[in-house]
Structures are given as structure tokens and as C-alpha cells.
């Protein structure tokens, strides 16, 4: 307990600088606004602001990006509840019960429940981060190259498995990301690889232009296209007409709704448990957490038939779970130096620019930074909650911004964002190239998030793999000779066996069904 309090005190002294506080407040506010705009999402905002954080202190830069990350997760529920369009993809399940509540004239109550559930999920996940990250980092001191190689591969395996129905496409994009990470001077020999004689590529393909191209430029084009198709504008216009809660005082918060959340303590704790438990695993993410939480809440409910028709329990389950992921997702990044998903992978570059390397040593070398991140996350959760309670009515206006204006502004921001990293137009052209790639990939149903994750994980896997094989003189036995590495390999094998057996069982059941149908004929 004393250690915890000391950590918090040290974090408070770290955060008590004007620039850090300003970044925290600006990031959180921006995150709330961005989350409330359907189609934008935190990835675009983080991509655009990433270069600006490089000139800040690591804590200030991270506070800005974490503010956007957390803020967007909170406010994604505003359009989900008011106009049945999730602001961020993770708020999809919030539309199931949030929008019917708004249609019943309970918009205030729905918003209050969503914000309070998100706040509880967010705070619990930060507590787990504080308690777990240090312990895991202490344990990870015993890890060698073999353990890190296996853990990173485990993360990649989870990313592939969790992309149900897109396993091949995800592996394809992971492969591209891994390959892109090898371009430039590298390998044990330090020889140029795949630079084709250009000096601009000697330092490798920088992450920022890739992120800007794939997220900002591609998303801007899709936003503009959607507004020209008429889908977005017609949809919003129809709902504005249809929904009495938009733009009037009904969009404020009903204080009674805050109390209502505590009428479902089991759902609240169970959903937070799902969010935190699944959020800690690299690559699995908030979708699974939210889905499992919602399904379990429905099964455990006394009135499951009202789920999807405006049951507050459903809203609590989805909002608590998706916000409980935010803090937990930082555990593998801080403790092991392995980002679990694309957004935390982008944040890793803020550490790298300042020569700070996340992982077990971070807790010994820069404990003040780690404590600062903890306090920053606690404060931003409180700030976002208060902000949303007081300004919800105005946040709902953000959902009315014209997608064309947004799209064109994002393009202009992408230009200056890419240029500002190295003050070079080459980065802008790289961003443009990746913008074309990202646009085509998204239009053709190929997921782009794994590419970014693989670009960040690539150098870690390559270095650790080579170190392991050098130690073992090229023998792969090193991965099963060491107990921790063997444990990770066993878990991976068990998961694969489980997936294969359930796939075979499903196939057999389908064959039986088909045979059953055929018999009467």
C-alpha cells in the first residue's frame, strides 16, 4: 500500500507541470470531440498529432495521445445513443440498447448510464494497470531473448485468431508490416536492405507517414465518398428529423442515471472483469471484451428479452467493458515493451523518439515516467467524466459536422503532419503512397490495423529471434528448453489445438445437419 501511495505521489509531482496538464486537458477534450464524430475515430487524430508530440516531453506527448485514446472511447457512445451511429467502432453494441432508450425519451438517462459505466470501467482498468504492470515488469526481468520472441509471436497469433473470418487477410497485412519494418539499414550486418539505392530509405520507412497515409488520408477519402454517396448525410438528416433528443435540452444528463448504474453491481463488475482480462492480452482488444460482456450480461439477466430494446443493463455491459480495456491495454506495452494493438503501437514511437524503451527496464530507469502515466490516466478519466456530464448537449452538436469538411481538413492536416517529422517532402509522398494503399486495402476488405502493429513488432521479433538463435547456435530447441518460453509455446499449442478441434466439431455438426435434411428426401 505504501509503495502504491509513493508511486502515486511521485506521479503527481511528475504531472504537476503546466505543459503536461495542458496536454492532458487538450488531449482529453479533443478525444471527446473526435469520438463523438462518426467516422473519424482516435486512430486518425493520433496519426495526425503524433509528429507534434515528438517535440514534447515523453509524459506530455503520451498524456496528449492517451487523452485522445480514452476520450474517444467515452464519447463514441454519444452518437451511438442519439443517432444510432457509433462514433467509434467499439461503441457498436451501445446502439443496441442506447438508441432504443433515446427513442423512448430516455436519452438523458442513457447518456448518464453510458458515461458512468465508462468511468467505472476506465478507473478500474487504470487500477489494474498500476497493480499489474509493475509486477509483470518485475517478473519479465527473468525473460531472455527466447521468452520475448515467443511472447511477441503469441501476440501476433492472438491478433490473427481474433480476426475471425479475416485470418488470411490479417496474416497478409501482418506479413506486409513485418517486411516494411526490415527496409533500411539493418540486420546483424547493418547492410542496406530493400532501399533500391535511395538514401531516403536508409533509415527505414518511418512509422508516421505510414500511419498518416493508412489512417488519415484513406479515411478522409472514404469520408468524402460517403458524403457524396449521400449515405452519411441522408442518414443523419433523417435521424435529426426522427429523433427528438438531438440538439435540444434532452441531450443533457440525468443525474438519477448515475445512481441507476449501481443498481446492477454484478453486471458492472463482470463487464469490467471482461474488459480488463481481455484488454491485457495483446491483440485481442475491446471488441471481444464488449461482445463477451454483453452476451454474458444478457444470459445472466432476469429479463434477457428486453436486451436490444432499451435495457440499461446492456448499455452498462458494453460501455464498462470497452472502457476497461484502455488501461489494461497499456500493461503489455509498459511491462514487456510489446504493444497489443495499433493505437498503443503508435504511442510506442513517442517513447522511442525520446530514447526511452518500454519494457522491464523502464520501471528501473524511469519510474517517474511510469508513475506519471498512471496519474495522468487517473486524472484524464475524472476530467473526461466531468466534461461529458457538463457539456453533453454541446458534444451532440459535433455529430452534425459535414463529413466533406472533415475529410478535406484531414487531408490538409495529413500533409503538414507528414512534413513536420523530418521537414521533408519525401515523407509527404510516402504518406500519399500509403494513403493509396490504405484506401485500396480498406475498400477491398483488408484490415489495415495489423500492418501498423507488425511494423512496430517487426524489429523486436527480428532482433530477439536472431539473439535466441545465436545463443543456441541455430537450434530451435531454445524455445522449449527455457521454462517460461516453454509455457508460452504450450499455451500457443493448446489454443491452436482448441481452435482446430472446435472447427472440426463444427464441420462434423454441419455434415450431420445436412445428412439429417437429406434423409426425408
Amino acid at each position, binding site marked *: 500500500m505504501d509503495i502504491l501511495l509513493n508511486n502515486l505521489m511521485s506521479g503527481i509531482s511528475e504531472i504537476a507541470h503546466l505543459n503536461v496538464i495542458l496536454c492532458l486537458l487538450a488531449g482529453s477534450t479533443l478525444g471527446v470531440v473526435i469520438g463523438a464524430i462518426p467516422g473519424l475515430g482516435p486512430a486518425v487524430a493520433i496519426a495526425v498529432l503524433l509528429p507534434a508530440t515528438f517535440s514534447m516531453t515523453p509524459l506530455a506527448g503520451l498524456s496528449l495521445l492517451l487523452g485522445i485514446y480514452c476520450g474517444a472511447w467515452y464519447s463514441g457512445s454519444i452518437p451511438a445513443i442519439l443517432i444510432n451511429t457509433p462514433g467509434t467502432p467499439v461503441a457498436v453494441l451501445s446502439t443496441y440498447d442506447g438508441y432504443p432508450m433515446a427513442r423512448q425519451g430516455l436519452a438523458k438517462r442513457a447518456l448518464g448510464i453510458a458515461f458512468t459505466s465508462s468511468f467505472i470501467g476506465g478507473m478500474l482498468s487504470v487500477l489494474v494497470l498500476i497493480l499489474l504492470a509493475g509486477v509483470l515488469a518485475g517478473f519479465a526481468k527473468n525473460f531472455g531473448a527466447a521468452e520475448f520472441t515467443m511472447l511477441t509471436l503469441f501476440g501476433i497469433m492472438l491478433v490473427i485468431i481474433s480476426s475471425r473470418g479475416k485470418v488470411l487477410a490479417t496474416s497478409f497485412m501482418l506479413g506486409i508490416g513485418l517486411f516494411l519494418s526490415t527496409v533500411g539499414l539493418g540486420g546483424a550486418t547493418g547492410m542496406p536492405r530493400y532501399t533500391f539505392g535511395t538514401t531516403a530509405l536508409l533509415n527505414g520507412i518511418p512509422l508516421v507517414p505510414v500511419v498518416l497515409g493508412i489512417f488519415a488520408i484513406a479515411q478522409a477519402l*472514404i469520408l468524402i465518398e460517403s458524403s457524396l*454517396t449521400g449515405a*452519411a448525410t441522408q442518414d443523419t438528416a433523417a435521424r435529426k428529423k426522427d429523433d427528438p433528443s438531438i440538439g435540444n435540452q434532452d441531450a443533457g444528463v440525468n443525474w438519477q442515471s448515475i445512481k441507476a448504474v449501481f443498481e446492477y453491481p454484478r453486471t458492472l463488475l463482470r463487464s469490467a472483469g471482461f474488459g480488463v482480462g481481455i484488454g491485457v492480452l495483446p491483440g485481442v482488444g475491446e471488441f471481444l471484451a464488449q461482445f463477451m460482456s454483453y452476451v454474458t450480461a444478457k444470459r445472466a439477466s432476469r429479463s434477457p428479452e428486453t436486451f436490444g430494446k432499451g435495457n440499461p443493463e446492456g448499455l452498462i455491459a458494453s460501455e464498462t467493458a470497452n472502457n476497461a480495456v484502455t488501461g489494461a491495454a497499456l500493461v503489455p506495452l509498459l511491462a514487456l515493451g510489446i504493444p497489443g494493438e495499433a493505437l498503443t503501437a503508435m504511442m510506442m514511437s513517442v517513447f522511442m523518439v525520446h530514447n526511452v524503451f518500454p519494457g522491464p527496464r523502464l520501471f528501473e530507469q524511469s519510474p517517474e515516467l511510469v508513475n506519471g502515466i498512471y496519474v495522468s490516466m487517473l486524472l484524464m478519466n475524472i476530467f473526461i467524466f466531468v466534461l461529458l456530464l457538463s457539456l453533453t448537449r454541446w458534444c451532440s452538436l459535433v455529430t452534425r459536422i*459535414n463529413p466533406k469538411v472533415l475529410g478535406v*481538413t484531414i487531408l*490538409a492536416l495529413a500533409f503538414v503532419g507528414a512534413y513536420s517529422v523530418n521537414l521533408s517532402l519525401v515523407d509527404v509522398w510516402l504518406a500519399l503512397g500509403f494513403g493509396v494503399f490504405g484506401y485500396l*486495402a*480498406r475498400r477491398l476488405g483488408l484490415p489495415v490495423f495489423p500492418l501498423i502493429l507488425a511494423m512496430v513488432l517487426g524489429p523486436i521479433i527480428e532482433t530477439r529471434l536472431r539473439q535466441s538463435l545465436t545463443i543456441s547456435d541455430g537450434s530451435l530447441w531454445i524455445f522449449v528448453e527455457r521454462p517460461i518460453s516453454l509455457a508460452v509455446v504450450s499455451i500457443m499449442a493448446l489454443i491452436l489445438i482448441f481452435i482446430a478441434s472446435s472447427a472440426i466439431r463444427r464441420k462434423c455438426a454441419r455434415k450431420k445437419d445436412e445428412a439429417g435434411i437429406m434423409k426425408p428426401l
Partner: protein
Amino acid sequence: MVQIHSLRAVFTGFISLVACLLMFNSDKVVSLQSTETDLYRSPVFFPTLALAIIAVTGIALVIQAFKKVPFMLDMDCEDSSPKLFISASLLFLFLFYSLSSNWIGYLFSTLLFLMTAFFLSGIRSKVNIVLSALISLSLYAIFVWLLDIWFPKPWLASLLANSN
């Protein structure tokens, strides 16, 4: 949907082909001056693994596309249909924007870019001019004054100064 399957096959097939070409010509695109004989010490060891993943999964995706195996698009893409002419025009405009910033300076190139992009997107009234002016001035204030990002002196301005 038939068209999208063919395009997906072409896209993944092309990348897969490039991966195969790079894989089998590694000695030509990577400087292999090392005397190391062990495979895992070679600078092409890890890239070859990555290229193999791209090649194999790419071919599998092509086969899937030919078999017309259904796939899911993300939410934004499902809600809208592609407008290739507009997107291509905006991408060319973006390229021209990056080049013109050297010629006429960041502020004016941003203003021109925004005005043209808004025009292409269908915002053609006075709102276009007002929005473009406001956004370009805001961006200039934030990035040039506040964040102190340096942009090259406009080539046209120095040319005019020299002629005077």
C-alpha cells in the same frame, strides 16, 4: 460484388507477385557482403520469412477471391460506394499541394488546396472561400507560429525578388 472480388484478386495477387520477386532476387536488392554462413545471421533471413508470409497468404487470398468466398468490409466502407474519380482527383490534388508548397509557400498552397478540394467535394458556394480561408489561417497559426515548423521560402517569391 463480382467486381470487388476480381479487384481483390488483382490487388493481393500483385503484392504476392512482388513479394515472390523480392524473395527470389534478395541477393540483388540486399547487399550480402557478409561472410556469415549461418542462415539466421543473414540480413535476408527475417525479410524472407515476411515475404514468404505475404506470398503464401496472398496466393490463398487470390484463390478465395476466385472462389468468391464472401468477406466483410468495415463499417464506413459498407455504408458508401467508391467514387474513384473524386478520390483520384483528390490524391492528385494532394500531390500537387505538396509540390506547390515549395513554389508559392505553405499558406497559399493550403488555401488553394482547400478551395479546390472543397469544390471537388461539392461545396461550391461562398462557404467554400470562407471555410478555406479560416482553415488555412488556423493551420498556419498552429503549425508555423505555435509549433514553429519551418517551411522552405517560396520559390516564386525569391524569383520575384531577384527580378526586382
